[in-house]
């Protein structure tokens, strides 16, 4: 349609680096986003996720490396030649044009006759259920409506890749959840590749087939949402995505596929090793999911008991289906247990109570990289 590149929306980044002045925004990244997938780039602000999106869109040129979309090497091509469309964070609607003319802008640039472009823009507006607002100016629309206009303006280019720069950040919580669902079903319906930049972890997990967690211009982990959440690769990913307790120690024994790990502050842990056995004496980090922790009252963990830590309750937070219990344990950071509401309210805890947290060896996931022990990273206390 309209002679633009069709076909595969697979995106391949090969050794892409982007430098601004003497600062590396993106450091030699390799990434493959499969055709027709919903990919979320997630990370704190300044981690380079938006730069990657803008390089795919063609609004930024990589300092080195290659970007391929489908069969095409797209570095140096204009956005329309790439078959990408971008939805901007502030929506970037043209304030001097009506909703209809905003959507028809692409067709106007292609010299489509006025009657036809108005007709096609109207059809696109019907699709996002905004045809009744076609003659309004963007300033007269609500945030959610503006976003739909931006979406319609992007989709009318018939792209093979839709790039979304924090599309939901300007909306209130209720609208955000609704638009989230709509984006996902839209992607299912269109079957094109969506690349979505966000700094909100639940958004990434809810939407994405593929989550790419970034930090300081590097990709920490790129995997399915389920793997990112339950089998994080690094302490950073575990803390950033939340829902995990990160623990560290030194390997003291390896036997029968089980590692024994000792924490300098006392407790010992067991974990089943995957892949190669680490040598005795290596520092090791692992995670235990918060919802896999069992609590019993009283500091009952005996010396030498594995996967049991004593702690004191410092906060409890009711979350509806579960209660988030924060414990002060001997390790550096707070330890969190999410206890099902029925279980919790059968025998509620109070701040200051001594408790023991226990978990099964099977619920321990060993991280690829040990915690450096440097300053506690800012995501240690997650937002979830």
């Amino acid at each position, binding site marked *: 349609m309209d002679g633009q590149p069709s076909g595969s929306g697979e995106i391949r980044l090969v050794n892409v680096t982007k430098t601004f002045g003497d600062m590396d925004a993106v450091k030699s990244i390799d990434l493959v986003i499969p055709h027709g997938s919903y990919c979320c780039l997630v990370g704190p602000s300044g981690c380079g996720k938006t730069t990657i999106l803008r390089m795919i*869109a063609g*609004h930024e040129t990589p300092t080195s490396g290659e970007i391929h979309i489908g069969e095409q090497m797209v570095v140096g091509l*204009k*956005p*329309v030649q790439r078959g*990408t*469309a*971008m939805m*901007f*964070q*502030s929506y*970037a*609607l*043209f*304030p*001097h044009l009506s909703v209809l003319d905003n959507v028809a*802008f*692409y067709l*106007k*640039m*292609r010299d489509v006759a006025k009657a036809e472009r108005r007709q096609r823009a109207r059809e696109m507006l019907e699709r996002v259920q905004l045809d009744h607002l076609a003659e309004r100016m963007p300033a007269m629309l609500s945030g959610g409506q503006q976003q739909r206009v931006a979406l319609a*303006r*992007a989709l009318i*280019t018939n792209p093979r890749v839709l790039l979304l720069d924090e599309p939901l950040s300007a909306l209130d919580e209720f609208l955000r959840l609704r638009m989230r669902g709509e984006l996902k079903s839209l992607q299912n319906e269109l079957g094109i590749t969506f690349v979505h930049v966000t700094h909100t972890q639940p958004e990434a997990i809810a939407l994405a087939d593929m989550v790419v967690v970034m930090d300081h211009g590097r990709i920490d982990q790129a995997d399915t949402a389920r793997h990112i959440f339950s089998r994080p690769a690094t302490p950073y990913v575990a803390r950033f995505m939340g829902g995990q307790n990160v623990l560290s120690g030194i390997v003291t024994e390896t036997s029968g596929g089980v590692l024994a790990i000792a924490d300098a502050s006392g407790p010992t842990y067991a974990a089943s090793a995957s892949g190669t056995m680490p040598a005795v004496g290596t520092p090791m980090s692992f995670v235990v999911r918060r919802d896999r922790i069992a609590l019993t009252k009283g500091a009952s963990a005996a010396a030498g008991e594995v996967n049991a830590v004593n702690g004191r309750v410092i906060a409890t937070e009711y979350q509806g289906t579960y209660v988030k219990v924060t414990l002060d344990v001997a390790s550096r950071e707070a330890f969190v247990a999410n206890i099902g509401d029925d279980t919790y309210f059968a025998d509620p805890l109070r701040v200051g109570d001594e408790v023991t947290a226990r978990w099964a060896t099977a619920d321990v996931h060993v991280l690829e990289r040990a915690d450096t022990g440097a300053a506690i990273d800012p995501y240690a206390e997650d937002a979830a």
Partner: protein
Amino acid sequence: MKSNRLLTYLQVTPLFLVLLLFVIVPLALVLIVSFFRYQMLVGLVPDFTFKNYIDLLSNPTSYKLYFSTIKFTLIVLAITGVLGFWVAYFLVFHVRNLLVAIGLFLVCTVPFWTSNIIRMISWRPVLGTEGLINTALLESGLVGEPISWLLFSDFAVIVAYVHLFTLFMIVPIFNAMARIDKALLEAAVDAGATRWGVVWNVVLPLSKTGIALGAVFVVTLVMGDFFVVAVMSGGLSGSATSGIFNDLQFLNYPRAAANAVVLLIIVLLIATAIFRLVDVRKELVR
């Protein structure tokens, strides 16, 4: 509530007094004097006569002067508009470093670091028959004899006007452009707009306020000038204001006042037309 109202009036009073003293009273005086009678050797004689206006409107010279003024205004408006737009465009969208942009902006103000007279006299060594341009053309053999219309001509007047007034176009356009969200330009490129398409469809419509304000500045400055036209044309051209100036020299204040009123009406009409085209007030609150 009552005292509140009083407070509001008190707050408005200083501005009102300034406007009354420096705008309303002088204008009223000019209007009144324009109906007075002029008597040789006596000067002003209070009266209510339309003679000054009839004199003015029945005199072919005043039509010639007004025609020449409006011609200069339109030509200067077109040139400063194009220059101002592109200079502002360059400063806002192509200079990424704010410091460099401020530096270049200051460079634009360099002509204003010296007095008006010196600025105009300085054109003589450039445009004169033995000036820089003519010497260069002669030496390179492009022309056989010096081009005479470079100085003391309408051309010279326009050069001086453009030199003096382009900044008044740049500043408001720069201000309007600086408020354009850069993402809009990217969105336009994303939708397949060429560089020219972005300028025509996005930057130009969103700079309209600046262009309108700049146009009002330039129109009022050119229409109100008699000095540049006199110096740069060598007395060959005149402007509406130079008619007023001449009347003042002969102490014919009533006719000068009548001329001023007519000029004011024309300038106001042009300004109204400009503001009709662009709703500046709406854009300013944006």
